[in-house]
């Protein structure tokens, strides 16, 4: 009985379906979000939807902890074991493209025309990666705190100036109700420093590297604007406004919610959880330190590895995953910014009048991607160490000069990283 059923199905399959559809080609994918339940659930849903939606490809996923993901990819690339679909952090993408880990996406760029600029990874004029979300950083505060301290609510059009921002911190400090006025997440010395804090430097008018040539950091990271930034940065810690580099890692999760801090500089991936715990939380735009208010752009994106033998299948999956409903699902799940306006309207938080809607416009208008150069990986490390040292009391001018020297030496020893 069973045998006949099997036979019948084989006969039906071989006659009715076209031949290549018989075997699905296996595609492998690596992801950085091991341990994040919500993220994994959404992504697994997308993958199973994709696998059942067509019969050419089947995608399998392997998740890595974020901290060791980049190292794993580098090691796998050296060993020639890259998967078909790679998850890549936006600012790291040029490094991987330059090194030959990634190939340009075999998808027409116009397919992603309405995506936020920060969600598209373009290097050397070619599209390499596409993000299912965009992230943003905001100043978390309670409306009640603002009212109590008598502070003006900053808006995108009229953000706090440096003076207003410092006055707000002073008021919070003077109230004596908080352990610290501001939580910056100083313990996280990975990508967070350059992502969250380099926009402050840019708002002062400096930058990590000179973006007109990408061949030196001289003047950008140690010029007048950068020195002013460095002094201000140091004053946050010498003035006792924010905890330093030895901050408790749990503070990013619970510090603001528990009332340890009046303000928290945090990513919108913490927005949903914070809204659930704090009724009157408001998300304020970055202060303007003189050259406009800036926040970082560019988050994790999907690309096709250079060694993939099925780039068309990988591209198929990326296109499938970039549907509005999935973009909206990620946004609702973890509070990230959906990269398209149409997806934004499908979400709870980013549709017109939603509690986070302001970020969509901010990301569109003022988010600045980190330096688009293969040297960024090293520059971010140097920048992070410089900021940590300044926070710990190192001389500002010497530290920034030394950082410039190190970045310049690295660019030189890498033959200019292919910038012409």
């Amino acid at each position: 009985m069973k045998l006949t059923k099997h036979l019948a199905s084989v006969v039906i399959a071989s006659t009715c379906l076209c031949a290549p559809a018989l075997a699905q080609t296996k595609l492998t994918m690596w992801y950085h979000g091991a341990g994040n339940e919500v993220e994994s659930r959404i992504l697994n849903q997308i993958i199973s939807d994709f696998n059942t939606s067509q019969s050419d490809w089947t995608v399998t996923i392997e998740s890595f902890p974020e901290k060791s993901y980049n190292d794993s990819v580098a090691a796998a690339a050296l060993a020639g074991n890259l998967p078909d679909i790679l998850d890549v952090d936006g600012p790291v993408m040029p490094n991987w493209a330059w090194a030959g880990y990634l190939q340009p996406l075999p998808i027409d760029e116009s397919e992603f025309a309405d995506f936020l600029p920060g969600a598209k990874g373009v290097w050397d004029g070619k599209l390499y990666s596409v993000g299912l979300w965009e992230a943003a950083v905001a100043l978390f505060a309670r409306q009640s705190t603002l009212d109590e301290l008598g502070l003006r609510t900053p808006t995108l059009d009229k953000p706090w100036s440096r003076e207003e921002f410092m006055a707000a911190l002073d008021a919070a400090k003077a109230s004596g109700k908080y352990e610290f006025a501001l939580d910056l997440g100083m313990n996280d010395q990975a990508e967070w420093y350059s992502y969250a804090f380099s926009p402050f430097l840019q708002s002062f008018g400096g930058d990590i590297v000179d973006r007109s040539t990408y061949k030196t950091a001289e003047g950008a990271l140690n010029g007048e604007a950068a020195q002013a930034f460095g002094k201000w940065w140091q004053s946050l810690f010498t003035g006792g406004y924010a905890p330093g580099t030895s901050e408790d890692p749990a503070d990013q999760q619970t510090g603001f919610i528990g009332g340890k801090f009046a303000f928290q500089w945090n990513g919108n991936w913490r927005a949903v959880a914070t809204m659930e715990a704090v009724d009157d939380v408001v998300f304020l735009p970055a202060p303007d330190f003189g050259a406009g208010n800036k926040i970082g752009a560019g988050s994790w994106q999907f690309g096709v590895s250079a060694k993939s033998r099925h780039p068309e299948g990988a591209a198929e999956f990326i296109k499938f995953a970039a549907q509005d409903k999935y973009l909206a699902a990620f946004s609702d799940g973890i509070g990230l910014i959906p990269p398209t306006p149409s997806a934004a309207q499908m979400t709870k938080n980013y549709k017109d009048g939603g509690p986070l809607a302001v970020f969509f416009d901010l990301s569109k208008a003022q988010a600045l991607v980190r330096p688009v150069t293969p040297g960024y990986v090293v520059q971010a490390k140097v920048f992070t160490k410089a900021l940590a040292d300044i926070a710990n009391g190192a001389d500002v001018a010497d530290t920034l000069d030394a950082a410039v020297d190190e970045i310049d030496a690295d660019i030189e020893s890498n033959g200019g990283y292919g910038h012409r």
Partner: protein
Amino acid sequence: MASKLTLSNRAGWTFALPGFALIFTFIVLPFFFAIGLSLTNQRLLSPNPTQFVGLENYQQLLGLAVVTLEPERNDAGEMIRNEAGEIQYPRLRAITRSDDYPQYRGMREWFRWQSGENVMVVIASDVVFMKALVNTFLFVLVVAPVQGSLALMLALLINHRVRGINLFRTIYFMPVVVSIVVVSLLWRFIYDGQNGLLNSILQALTFGLFQPVDWLGNPSTALPSVMAMSIWQAVGFHMVIWLAGLQTISPTLYEAAAIEGASRWQTFRYVTWPGLRNTAVLVLVVITMQGFALFAQIDVMTSGGPLDSTQTLVFQAVERGYGKQDISGGSTISVILFAIVLAISLIQRWLTRER
């Protein structure tokens, strides 16, 4: 003897083979790779071809120089002083960036001292490496004797046949079983500057007189804190080795000592300690090598900060090789570390040789 070892012991060699193969593949071979890579400009990922650069990496790490800074003078030749009356010196960068001194390019200040009117500045091509070198030596110099003797004391304490002694053995050994990463995470909370356990206990013990210390955030307490935690974590391991050594000492010797009327100190000095000779050498060598390999605690607890006060050689090797994608630089540090550990082990062997 040799023929017995090589021929009649075929089964033994067969059993040892997998171990040898693993050691060769994962320790010996990579080490020779490291020596080779340290002579090139190999990057972790780069489309540029690898070039042979000779000893440039070693120069880059070990380069040192001393420059003399003369006081700044005004047109009349008087020294310029600031409001506090301190003599003003030109910025070091004026020299290290100047085309007049191409040999100092890219070097940074390590430390300086006053010499008469002038200031002598020791500049290094790689200040962080130098600090890592000093910190690593400091760590070993403190941890090796303290951990070794503490372990011996614990071993002597628990080398008794009393009821419930296994409970104490277990308690002392427990930290060894827990992963060092987990232990480091836990100790971060203990050392927390605001409401860490250590500060709370000290405050309670001193009835609030004790001012909380940011143990890991203060350059002067960060390395000692890591040392204390490392000593605590691995002391049980060495305790067990000492214990094994203690139990090889024949009880008849103790009986003889008792009959001769030896005091407890004399028993220890003339029976126990000589009997522990080989164990002592082993413990010392093992602690030294583990000390030089200090990494996980740093990676989890301080990332080398604050102000490089907890940089170590292995942390720098990893940071450089993976973080900054400079495999040749990381390999160079590993080779230097190997040379240091080898030299120290040989010295230890020589000092503790059979005379």
